[in-house]
C-alpha cells in the first residue's frame, strides 16, 4: 500500500514536473513567436503557439532518446557533441550552424585552458618563490 501510494505520488510528481516543463516551453515559444511576429508584422494565434510548443516538447523527447542511443552506439556513457551533430545531420543549415558553434566553443575552451595553465604556472612559481624565500630566510637567519 505504501508502495502504491508512493508510486502514485511519484507519478503525480512526475506529471506535475512534466506540466511545469511544458509550461516553460510554452512560455519560451510564445516569446520567440512574438519576436518573429514583430519582425514579419504578422501576429500568431494562440493555437499556433500552443501547437508549436507541444511539437517542440515531443521533439525534445525524441531528440533525447536518439542522443542516448547514439552515445550508447558509440559505446560511451556521456552524450557528446558528436552525437548532437549526428542528430542534426539531416538539416544542412542546422548542421552547419552547430558545427560552427562547436568550433567556437572548442576554441574558447582551449583559450580558457591556456589561460588557466598560465595562471597555474604563475601560482606555482609564486608559491615556490616565497617557499624558497622562506627557506632562504630561515637558512639565513
Amino acid at each position, binding site marked *: 500500500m505504501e508502495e502504491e501510494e508512493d508510486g502514485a505520488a511519484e507519478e503525480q510528481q512526475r506529471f506535475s514536473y512534466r506540466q511545469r516543463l511544458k509550461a516553460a516551453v510554452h512560455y519560451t515559444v510564445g516569446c520567440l513567436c512574438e519576436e518573429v511576429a514583430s519582425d514579419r508584422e504578422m501576429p500568431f494565434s494562440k493555437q499556433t503557439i500552443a501547437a508549436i510548443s507541444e511539437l517542440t516538447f515531443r521533439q525534445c523527447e525524441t531528440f533525447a532518446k536518439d542522443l542516448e542511443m547514439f552515445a550508447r552506439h558509440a559505446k560511451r556513457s556521456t552524450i557528446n557533441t558528436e552525437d548532437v551533430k*549526428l542528430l542534426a545531420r539531416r538539416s544542412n543549415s542546422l548542421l552547419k550552424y552547430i558545427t560552427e558553434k562547436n568550433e567556437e566553443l572548442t576554441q574558447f575552451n582551449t583559450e580558457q585552458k591556456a589561460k588557466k595553465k598560465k595562471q597555474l604556472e604563475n601560482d606555482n612559481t609564486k608559491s615556490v618563490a616565497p617557499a624558497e624565500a622562506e627557506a632562504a630566510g630561515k637558512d639565513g637567519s
Partner: protein
Amino acid sequence: MAEAMADSYNGDSEPTTRTLLRRVLDTADTRTPRRRRSARVGAQKALLETPSSRRLSSPTKMNVRRHSHRVRSIGRLAHVHTSGNVEEQTPRTLLKNILLTAPESSIMRPESVVKPVPTPQVVQSSRRDSSRGSLELQLPELEPPTTLALGLLAPGRRKQRLRLSVFQQGMDQGLPLSQEPRGNASASSLTSSLNLTFATPLQPQSVQRPGLARRPPTRRAVDVGAFLQDLRDTSLALASPGDSLRTPVATLPADTVLEDTQPFSQPLVGRSPSGYHSLTCLSHTEVEDAERAVSLRTQSSGPRLQNHSLYVCPAESPGCWFLLHVRAESVLDQDTPNKYHPGKPAELLAGKAKKVDAHAVSFPNNSSAISGEDGVEPLQDGVDEEAEERMEESLSVSEVMDTTGTQGSVRTEKSKRHREMSEAVEAKEPEGSSGDEDISGRRASPELASSTTEFLQARQPQFLEPALPPSTAVLSSEPLEPLPTRLPPRARTPGPRPRQDPHKTGLSHYVKLFSFYAKMPMEKKALEMVEKCLDKYFQHLCDDLEVFAAHAGRKTVKPEDLELLMRRQGLVNDQVSLHVLVERYLPLEYRQLLIPCAFSGNSVFPAQ
C-alpha cells in the same frame, strides 16, 4: 431379398472375409430401418457380388478398401450395426456396417460433390427405375451418398479410375458393378463415388499429369531431309574451327539438344569466314532441297556471316558474337580476314564427315575463341553507330547458325521464335540483310533468337524493347543456364550507360510490388514518382547506415548500425526488439545467421 442372397451365399464353400462381409452387409441392410436404400443396394450388390465374386481375382483388395473406408467413416458414425451376425461380428464387419450406414447418417453435404453427381444421377436414376431387379448397379439417392462419396472419392480416385473401365465394361455387358469399385466404399457411397467419377472423368486424367499439360509443345516432327542437310552444313562449317573446342563442349549438345526446356543449348555462333565460302558452295546444293531461297541469300551474306561468326566472345555470351559479328563484317569489308579463308575450306571439307552435334556445339565456342579478342575491342568503340549493322548481322548470323543447325526438332521451334524476333527487328531495320533474316527465321534457334534479343536489348533497348521483351523474356532465361561459361556481354559493352540502370532494375521490383498492392491501375507517372521516392529513401537509408558506422569508429556496417536505424524509424522499440522482428519476418536461413543459435559440439553461431 437379403435372405435370399444370404441363402445363395451359403452355397459358397469358402468362408472368405468377403463373403462374411457380404453377409453382414445383407443382414445389416435388412435390419436398420434407415437402410431401405442401402438394403436395396446391398441386396443388389450382393447379387452383383455373387456372380462376380468368383470372377474377381483380388478379394483382398476390396476388403482392404472397405476397411480403409470403414476406418474413415468410423469417425462419422458412432453407432455400429451389428446386423445380427453375432458370430461374425468382427471389427471388420462392424466397420462394414458403419460404412453402409455412413451415407445416410452423415450430415455433411459438400456442394462440390453435389454438382458432379446430378448429371450421372439422372442417368442412373433412370437406370434404377428401369432395372430394379436387374443386376445393374442401383444408385442411391444423391444426397446421402455424396457426402461420404466425396470423402472417399479423393483417396479412391485412382482406384476408381482404374476400375472405371471395368465398370464401363460391366455396364455394357449388363453386368453388375464389379466388386472392386464397391470395395472402395459401401454400396451407396461407392455408387455415388462412381457417379462422381463419371461426372468428372477428365479431371483425374488431366490432373494426373499436370506437368505435361503445362509444358509447351516440345518436339515437332523432325524433317529428316532438312536435318540431314543441316548436319552436313554444320559439319562443313564447324569442321575446322571446332576441333579444339569440341571436347569441352561435346557433352553439352547431347544434353541440351534434346531438352525442351533449354532450346538455346548452343547458339550456333558462326562459322569461319573462309570456311563459309566453301560451305556455301557445298551447302548450296544441300540446302537447295530444304531451302533454296535461303541458300541463295545465305550465299550473299554467307561470307559475311561466317566472318562474323568467327568473332565471337570466348565467353560464349550470346551477345558477344553479335558484337564480333559486326566487327567481323567490318573486317571483312576491309579485306583483312582473307587470310583466314584458305585454311578453312579444307578443314571444313575434312570435317564434313564428323557429327553435327559436336560441330554445332564446338563451333560457337571455336569461333568465339578465335576471334573473341579481336572483335571485342573495336566493337566497344563504335557501339551506337554499328548498332544497326550488328542487329542485322546478328540476325543473319543466327540464321546461318540455324541453317547449319543442331537439332531439327528444336530448330523448328527456334525458327518460329527467331522469325518472330527477326520480324520485329526487320520492322525496325529493314535492310538488305532482311533476306538473311528470313533464312534465319525459318530455322532460327531459340538460342540465337534469345541471344540476339538479349544482346540487342542490351545494346539498343529503346527500339528493341517493345518487340523483343516478350520473346526475350521467354527465351533469355533459358540460354543462360545451359551456357554458364559464357561471360555476360553487357559488362563490357555499355560503357557510357549511366549507373541508373542497375539501380533502377532493383527499384522496379518494388514498384511492381507497389502497383500490385495498390489494387488499382496506376499512371505511369505515378509509378515513376514512386520509383523516385524509393530511390531517395534507400539513398537516405544507406547514408544513415554509413554515418552510424563512422560514428562508432568503424568502417564496416554492422547489425548494430541497422538496429539503431530501425530504432530511429520506430520499428524497434522497447517493446519490440530486433530479434523479435527477425523471428517474425525472416526465413529460417537468415534467422540462423542473425540470431545466435547453439549447435552441436558446444558451438554457437553466429559467435557472440
